């Protein structure tokens, strides 16, 4: 598809993209080399401060580590829960499998901030769950809202991430599993593999594209998001998303822009990986 062929039809799109995506991105790149008060370019001066901080400030490293640790844990849990769900639905005899999948998506119809605030309430000290548990003597497992491990692992944040992003793991895996030709499984059994062997030698290798897509679709927002860590994390835990948020809030647009660009690069890298594994984009529904 070349642009010349479509001619004037793409013009509005190009204008739209340049004004709303291209220009702001350029602006962000410029901002990283400046020292300015928010967007007050009149008093801005050229400076490498942001770049220096990026490589020297320990907070950035901690934030990246915390985001990474919680993102990875959430992704693994999503995979462990999501794969069996996708597998069971794909192999079930339900006449309308789509309905089951819609059920997993329905929670997404309500705003994720609302949902995460609700989770925050449930996980906090003054929740029904805590009341019940503490009254039957199980007060040592609740509340988990403030629990943070040394690695940066925050159970509350991971619960929020899993509940929010699980469907993004289930759907691509379901899509590939559904497409697997059943005669391949019969061929595998015919050639001497029992059901478990068939799963590991045929089904799983053939679903790897969906797994890759699912992992990336869960990990990226888990890694870069700021709302869920902000709502569910205890105040002491800094994430890359919350760090960017606070920089912008403090009118430090320069450093905020730089951190955003770092995340953008990570995302582009991951997208390149998806397209390498899944050239036709068939798992991205």
């Amino acid at each position, binding site marked *: 598809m070349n642009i010349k062929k479509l001619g004037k039809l793409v013009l509005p799109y190009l204008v739209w993209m340049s004004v709303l995506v291209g220009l702001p991105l350029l602006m962000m790149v410029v901002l990283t080399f400046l020292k300015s008060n928010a967007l007050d370019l009149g008093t801005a001066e050229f400076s490498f401060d942001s770049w220096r901080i990026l490589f020297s400030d320990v907070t950035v490293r901690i934030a990246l580590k915390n985001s990474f640790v919680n993102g990875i844990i959430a992704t693994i849990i999503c995979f462990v829960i999501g794969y069996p769900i996708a597998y069971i639905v794909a192999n079930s005899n339900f006449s309308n499998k789509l309905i089951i999948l819609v059920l997993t998506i329905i929670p997404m119809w309500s705003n994720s901030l609302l949902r995460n605030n609700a989770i925050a309430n449930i996980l906090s000290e003054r929740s029904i769950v805590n009341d019940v548990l503490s009254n039957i003597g199980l007060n040592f497992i609740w509340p988990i809202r403030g629990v943070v491990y040394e690695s940066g692992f925050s159970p509350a944040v991971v619960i929020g991430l899993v509940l929010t992003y699980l469907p993004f793991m289930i759907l691509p895996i379901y899509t590939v599993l559904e497409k697997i*030709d059943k*005669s*391949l499984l*019969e*061929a*595998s*059994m*015919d*050639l*001497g*593999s*029992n059901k478990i*062997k068939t799963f590991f*030698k*045929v089904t799983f*290798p*053939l679903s790897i594209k969906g797994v890759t897509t699912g992992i990336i679709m869960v990990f990226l927002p888990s890694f870069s998001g700021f709302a869920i860590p902000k709502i569910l994390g205890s105040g002491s835990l800094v994430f890359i998303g919350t760090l960017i948020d606070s920089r912008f809030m403090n009118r430090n647009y320069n450093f905020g822009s730089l951190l955003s660009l770092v995340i953008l690069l990570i995302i582009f890298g991951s997208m390149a990986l998806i397209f390498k594994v899944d050239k036709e984009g068939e798992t991205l529904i």
Partner: protein
Amino acid sequence: MSKKLIELRNVTKTYDDITVVDNISLYINENEFITLLGPSGCGKTTTLRMIGGFEKPDSGEIILNGVVVNELPPYERPINTVFQRYALFPHLNVFDNIAFGLKNQKVPKQEIAERVETALKLVSLPNFGARKVANLSGGQQQRIAIARAIVNRPKILLLDEPLAALDLKLRQNMQYELKEMQRKLGITFIYVTHDQEEALTMSDTIVVMRDGLIQQIGTPTGIYNEPRNRFVARFIGESNILEGTYVRQNVVSFMGVEFDCVDIGFADGEKVDVVIRPEDLDLIDPVGAKLVGVVSSSIFKGVHFELCVIVQEKEFVIHTYENKNVGQAVGLRVDSYEIHLMKVEN
């Protein structure tokens, strides 16, 4: 004397109240090339799948080497299958596809390599091991699917319309190669097809099926020359089927004329169906002929002409080497041994 290898005893299979395989009994000998032949929906593939272990019969027994194997899963049967659409594993290359079964049997690596190479040579695709399955043509995929099955040296090879997706020329070549392979390997082949020509070319025994019932079991020549009923006569080759009466021993009457015949086993005066193959009707001079008709069409078929001759408002198909003009009057003659009689079905 060949040994009975597998036997189906009163096997029935029903899906949602539809009886797909209806109480069939059948045995298959060692080293036999047997074909299940019938139109789609006749139950032939279901029968094959029950032998392979992919379906369980609702009732009846499948006996392999004297042991009932109804409950044995496919991976424990000494049987391999060539699937209709090949079912090659897309994530493995040709070598790993063929080695799949051997690896499951924990055959040593060295031996796997040798046996895969031998199998590839047998299907005339040597040195294809490293290729990707997706880059092979339909005919090549077909051969790899066969190699993947026979490399395991099964007792029985099941083939579910394996040639259906190939073009005519390739299909004919593969027919000879399959027959040759079966002879060389000494494996029992159970072959499913709806193509009667394929069945006649390759089989030692043909089982003609319809609506879940076996219509006739016999050798290709037996089934072609002595079809048991109208369905078999129509399904295997072309035929002229006429209503007739068995006048007395060795005399049958049809089209209002009496003919000598050799078939016996009918009562005097019994209604019979008469089958005459198109190549068994000879054209003679209309003067003095028992059957006289007019040529209504003539089609050149390469080796022969296919004539339609109208006799007493009944159309006969005749294969002949000499052409006749449309509208020409001809006489028809048929030898007594080429008149085949069948019981009339109710």
